[in-house]
């Protein structure tokens, strides 16, 4: 029972941290302390935080390395943007439309996760990393050659150019190859993003501390032993991987509904992005959701906050990376942290006793 309350408390701290950060940012925005440039960064930031948490489910809890997380985000972004653009007239209520877009984006990314996971999760080691890396690039390139138009007769597909769609008069090009999707309704707001962060945390943290989460972590720690106690390896690996993928899809939905023009470039959906998310996870601490959130926030905002320092900007960024790395992973730092936290805990225990 004591253990339960400990994990519950830790989860509550994580939720509370997100809410406090949200409140602080809202107050700063309303008092005019946040530049418009930073304000524009708030919605993508929510997407990055969700990406970091969802990748941490694959890397930290399942223990598999995925380098294609941006690919799942891309799937979620484009399917949902496609839906929203088509449904602008059919579903005029923005809230309902956005909710449906979220479901569609998450489902599409989740299905991709299952399709990739089925063959690859049976393998051990680095295969998953390589295949997911390839997947991310393939998705990005497919989106870049995809042309979809719509007229009175229905949908038209092409992989050549928008002319070969053969649209009738009055038909509209929805997905325009490298030019992407233009005119997606801008439904994402900072509030919605934060709510979705909380939902993501709710799903991931509750999964971690349930029967299925225990099975997933057991597989991570020792596959052979997990099998020997009757845990279905493929099922639970696939479950963790597809949940992680569909949450990345949710991040893609947020991201897509914040842009006037959604295009698939190496910068936003390429492996640079995937590596960036992995950096959030590694720096925040593998398996540590709260750390992922903090790392995603710091590393997204830092380059913007340091803009005034121009030349020294990237230098400071790199130093922060190294310091965070040392703080998280060097044995001496871990030792120091444990000592510090145990002393802190003892003090707390004492004061609790005195109070009683």
């Amino acid at each position, binding site marked *: 029972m004591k*253990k339960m309350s400990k994990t519950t408390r830790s989860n509550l701290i994580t939720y509370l941290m997100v809410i406090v950060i949200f409140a602080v940012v809202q107050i700063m925005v309303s008092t005019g302390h946040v530049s418009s440039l930073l304000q524009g960064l708030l919605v993508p930031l929510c997407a990055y935080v969700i990406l970091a948490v969802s990748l941490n489910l694959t890397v930290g809890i399942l223990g598999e390395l995925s380098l294609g997380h941006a690919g799942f985000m891309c799937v979620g972004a484009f399917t949902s943007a496609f839906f929203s653009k088509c449904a602008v007239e059919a579903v005029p209520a923005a809230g309902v439309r956005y909710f449906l877009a979220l479901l569609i984006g998450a489902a599409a990314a989740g299905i991709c996760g299952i399709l990739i996971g089925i063959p690859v999760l049976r393998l051990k080691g680095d295969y998953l990393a390589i295949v997911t890396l390839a997947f991310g690039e393939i998705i990005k390139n497919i989106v870049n050659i995809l042309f979809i138009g719509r007229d009175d007769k229905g949908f038209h597909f092409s992989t050549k150019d928008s002319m070969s769609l053969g649209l009738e008069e009055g038909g509209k090009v929805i997905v325009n190859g490298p030019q992407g999707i233009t005119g997606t309704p801008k439904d994402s707001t900072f509030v919605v993003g934060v709510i979705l962060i909380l939902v993501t945390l709710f799903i991931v943290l509750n*999964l971690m501390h349930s029967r299925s989460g*225990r*099975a997933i972590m*057991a597989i991570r720690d020792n596959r052979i032993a997990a*099998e*020997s*106690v*009757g845990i279905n390896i493929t099922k639970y690996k696939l479950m963790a991987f597809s949940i992680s993928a569909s949450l990345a899809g949710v991040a893609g939905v947020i991201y897509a509904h914040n842009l006037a023009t959604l295009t698939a470039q190496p910068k936003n959906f390429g492996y640079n992005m995937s590596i960036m998310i992995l950096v959030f996870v590694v720096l925040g601490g593998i*398996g540590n959701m709260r750390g992922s959130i903090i790392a995603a926030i710091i590393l997204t905002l830092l380059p913007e906050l340091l803009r005034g320092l121009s030349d020294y900007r990237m230098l400071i960024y790199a130093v922060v990376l190294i310091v965070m790395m040392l703080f998280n992973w060097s044995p001496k730092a871990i030792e120091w942290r444990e000592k510090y936290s145990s002393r802190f805990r003892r003090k707390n225990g004492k004061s609790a006793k005195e109070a009683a």
Partner: protein
Amino acid sequence: MALLEVNNLGISFGGLRAVNEFHLKIEKGRLYGLIGPNGAGKTTVFNLLTGVYKPNEGVILLDGENIVGKKTIDINKAGIARTFQNIRLFKDLSVLDNVKAGLHNHYKYSTLEGIFRLPKYFKVEKAMDERAMELLAVFDLDKEADTLAANLPYGKQRKLEITRALATEPKLLLLDEPAAGMNPNETKELMETIRFVRDEFHMTILLIEHDMKLVSGICEELTVLNFGEVLAEGNTSDVLNNPEVIKAYLGE
């Protein structure tokens, strides 16, 4: 009917005949030992019994049901649990969670019930906690329930592995060199634990061991393997006095 009956079991790895015409019969409630020199194929037999390897030929009857060709997880569900020569715990999980992972197939609720914390989650988790603590108390590990498995001392890690195996409610428990790396005192304690498990849980136990003191101390029957074949079998004292067995162990 014997609980476990193995006949004509064999497996080759490439050109190497690792196990040949192996047979074994264990009655319910027995403490049975499988011994033999290094490389004789003892662990291979365990891996065949638990479905890690598929035998080239032979039958394995557990309670009259042939389990050859089944997957490891199905064999566990059918009633065989094991420990490993080199300890395989879920080392980043707490001691309690290790045992709860063992309870996986006996206390169920769906993933959605877990994520949305429906009433069934609390009910089943509570029952799991109680059962796991009960098992841990038997092995005197209940005080360490919150410790990470990796931080337990060696002897307790061995005990935890046995606890986790018992949590899957097996009919037959396989112990692969449970006393490896233990000092005489720990071995003595382990012998008592094994005997206790047999009596308390009415368990049938098959163990691989090199420590002759342990083998002669607790095993009622033995099978001796040498070069993948059965060299001798029967009563412990008879087998240990068999000149061929002595020759295989000590040389001429």
